[in-house]
């Protein structure tokens, strides 16, 4: 037989991973489709393991499948406790799969199975099923629905939603794109319950689909939204069902779906398309302003000039409003992220056998939905580290005179147009000696090099440096701190570490509130112009050449009684500096990690849309993208974090060793 056990292991591991991800998503909010995908994953695993004769896995996944079936068919309510219970059993399943993969003796699962069964019995809240008779749904449809689709149909009826059958015909060879477009359109209108391919009455070379939709919208709205497709109304929307909930609809999780009557769920991609269009308009607005200025210069303030001036002001104001509305639409509160993280902390602390209290601040702080999704993985990684390496075991904490239970604090707060996310633990703190020793061992730092504490902390972001010699169960999964940093940097943010031995470690992630349009400072260096994101600029000031001092081979300048390191942008890009006596310093960074970029001139502040740069420039350090400013001129955008790294690591850390 060509199909080996190895194939099974690969697919089984994939299933477990995607099931775990779906469960994490469910903690963020109930979604019937996500729950169904968890069921399907375990269902597939059951069938698969059966074919390979792996009885332990088959039996356990079978029991788990029954539990998930109860959940997806609404016989049992999906609470956080249930999700945690499922999580713990998925872990057991995962263990057995690795035992199979390592050809070890497989654990006995009979106790686990009993536990799941008694859990099912204990939380049995079987609700009365309604009959589908009398709704005028044709048997040709009812006969092909799966259990789950049938349940979703009933749920839609219970909620008083309208039932619609949308019929669409496509070209047989190329139906996928058209059908997908229609499906995603329908998913915005309600729940797509089933997709039925049909061929009766359809000409050769074509294929038809009947799509069963449950929706809180009325027939006219549906018809206007589906374009040319044919809409058949199976049952009208029953508004009455909404005002007097029958005992059947009292399940809270499902009722929440009902509230969507005057809410439209929009795919974030659509918002992005609109934002892109607005960005283009912002550029056009810039052009109008420029035309006004040129007009004023050439013909003076005649009435045409004033008109242009007026209209550009209106454009400016209205576009700003539009941008603000749109950006606000993309915002979600941190509570969405935090609930997911809390579950992660509970899970990891259980696995690591540590008792941990969780403190949360700033749940109402808002962040761009897309950013929220992007930072979840880095945050999970930081949390894993805090639970695993940070917080000490109970007996050790007691010995050190600390309180028995560890604390992990999650905090989010706005700071100007940035948002700061703090992950803090009250554990052992970073072991600077150990980090430095490792870095020297790996030739990342020359021996006898004196480094400041902060600089040692930053070493944990260097690829290939891990302080834990043995990968632990919880955090040793191959995602390093370097990936965390890379991710945050790619989102235009910073990571800052504070750590005190015996007291704990704090990671501060500073991120822009949104990814879309940014304000930039246009600077001039030699004959070139660059853009610096204004969010990264702390201040700018005038610098006289003779005030620049040199300490330990670094150029610095005194600023409010402190020494500010300087970096010449011209040096970074090997540009010929203008023979000027004076410069401007653009101060970037926060707290103790601040530098002044020396530039020849400050030109303008303007809104830009950052675009990725082409392949040929991609490997140049210090560049983060390109942006168009007026007159179709392209400027390069400085990667501020990269610049700071350049400044801080330039002299001290052995660059060659790092790049090797």
């Amino acid at each position, binding site marked *: *037989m*060509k*199909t080996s056990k190895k*194939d*099974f292991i*690969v*697919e089984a591991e994939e299933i477990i991973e995607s099931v775990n991800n779906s469960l994490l998503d469910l903690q963020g909010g109930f979604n019937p489709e996500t729950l169904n*995908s968890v069921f*399907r994953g375990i*269902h*597939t695993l*059951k*069938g*698969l393991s*059966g*074919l390979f*004769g792996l009885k332990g896995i*088959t039996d356990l996944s079978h029991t788990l499948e029954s539990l998930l079936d109860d959940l997806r068919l609404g016989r049992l309510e999906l609470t956080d406790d249930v999700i945690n219970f499922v999580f713990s059993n998925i872990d057991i399943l995962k263990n057995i799969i690795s035992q199979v993969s390592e050809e070890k003796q497989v654990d006995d699962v009979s106790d686990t199975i009993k536990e799941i069964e008694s859990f099912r019995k204990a939380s049995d809240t079987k609700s009365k099923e309604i009959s589908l008779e009398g709704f005028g749904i044709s048997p*040709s449809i009812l*006969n*092909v*629905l*799966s*259990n789950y*689709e049938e349940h979703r149909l009933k749920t839609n009826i219970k909620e008083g939603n309208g039932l619609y059958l949308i019929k669409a015909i496509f070209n*047989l*060879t190329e*139906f*996928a794109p058209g*059908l997908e477009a229609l499906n995603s359109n329908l998913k915005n209108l309600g729940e797509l319950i*089933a*997709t*039925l*391919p*049909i*061929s*009766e009455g359809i000409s050769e070379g074509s*294929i038809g689909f009947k799509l069963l939709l449950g929706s809180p919208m009325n027939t006219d709205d549906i018809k206007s939204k589906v374009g040319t497709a044919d809409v058949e109304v199976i049952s009208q929307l029953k508004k009455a069902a909404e005002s007097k909930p029958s005992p059947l609809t009292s399940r809270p999780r499902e009722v929440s779906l009902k509230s969507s009557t005057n809410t439209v769920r929009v795919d974030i991609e659509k918002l992005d398309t609109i934002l892109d269009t607005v960005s283009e308009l912002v550029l056009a607005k810039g052009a109008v302003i420029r035309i006004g200025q040129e007009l004023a210069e050439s013909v003076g303030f005649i009435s045409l000039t004033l008109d242009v001036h007026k209209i550009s002001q209106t454009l400016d104001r209205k576009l700003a409003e539009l941008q603000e509305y749109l950006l606000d639409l993309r915002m979600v509160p941190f509570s969405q992220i935090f609930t997911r993280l809390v579950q992660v902390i509970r899970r990891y602390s259980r696995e690591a056998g540590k008792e941990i209290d969780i403190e949360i601040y700033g749940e109402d702080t808002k962040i761009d939905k897309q950013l929220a999704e992007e930072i979840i993985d880095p945050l999970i990684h930081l949390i894993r580290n805090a639970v695993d390496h940070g917080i000490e075991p109970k007996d050790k904490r007691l010995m050190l005179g600390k309180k028995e239970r560890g604390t992990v604090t999650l905090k989010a707060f706005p700071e100007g147009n940035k948002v700061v996310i703090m992950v803090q633990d009250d554990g052992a703190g970073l072991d600077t000696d150990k980090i430095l020793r490792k870095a020297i061992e790996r030739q990342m730092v020359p021996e006898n090099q004196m480094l400041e504490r902060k600089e040692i902390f930053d070493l944990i972001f260097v690829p290939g440096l891990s302080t834990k010699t043995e990968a632990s169960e919880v955090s040793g999964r191959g995602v390093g701190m370097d990936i965390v940093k890379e991710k945050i940097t790619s989102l235009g943010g910073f990571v800052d570490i504070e750590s005190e031995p015996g007291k704990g470690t704090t990671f501060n992630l500073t991120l822009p509130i949104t990814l879309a349009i940014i304000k930039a400072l246009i600077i001039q260096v030699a004959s070139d112009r660059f853009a610096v994101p204004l969010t990264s600029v702390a201040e700018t000031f005038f610098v006289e050449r003779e005030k620049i001092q040199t300490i330990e081979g670094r150029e610095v300048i005194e600023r409010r009684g402190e020494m500010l390191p300087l970096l010449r942008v011209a040096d970074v890009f090997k540009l010929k500096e203008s023979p000027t006596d004076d410069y401007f310093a653009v101060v970037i960074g926060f707290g103790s990690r601040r530098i002044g970029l020396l530039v020849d001139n400050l030109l303008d502040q303007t809104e830009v849309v950052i675009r990725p740069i082409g392949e040929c420039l991609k490997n140049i350090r210090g560049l983060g993208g390109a942006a168009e400013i007026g007159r179709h001129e392209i400027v390069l955008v400085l990667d501020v974090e990269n610049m700071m790294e350049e400044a801080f690591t330039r002299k001290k850390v052995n660059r060659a060793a790092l790049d090797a």
Partner: protein
Amino acid sequence: MKSVLVVDDSSTTRSLITSMLEDIGGIDVFEASSGFEALKILPRRPFDLVVTDINMPDINGFELVSFVKNNEKYKNIPVIFISTERNEGEINKGMSLGAFAYITKPFNTEEFHGIVKKALSL
């Protein structure tokens, strides 16, 4: 040479069924990872048998088979369901759609070979 279409969203199950079919000899196996893919492959050649899973995303096995059995061109192709679902109602549902057989997972190779050979009149 007989042509058989195997529809299952699990790649391992698919290749397992494929190799079981190939062990019979004289069978050309085509795989589809979803109901949509099956709809695209079906018109490409005259199939002698469709073997399909039931629980799949988007289009389930029942919906696929209902399409096949109501289509003038395909309605004579025998269909075998392979599913872990042992529920009497589900089996009846499958058979009343006009399936040739309903096999529950796990199953042994001889049983499977026997049913396939019968469906293909080998």
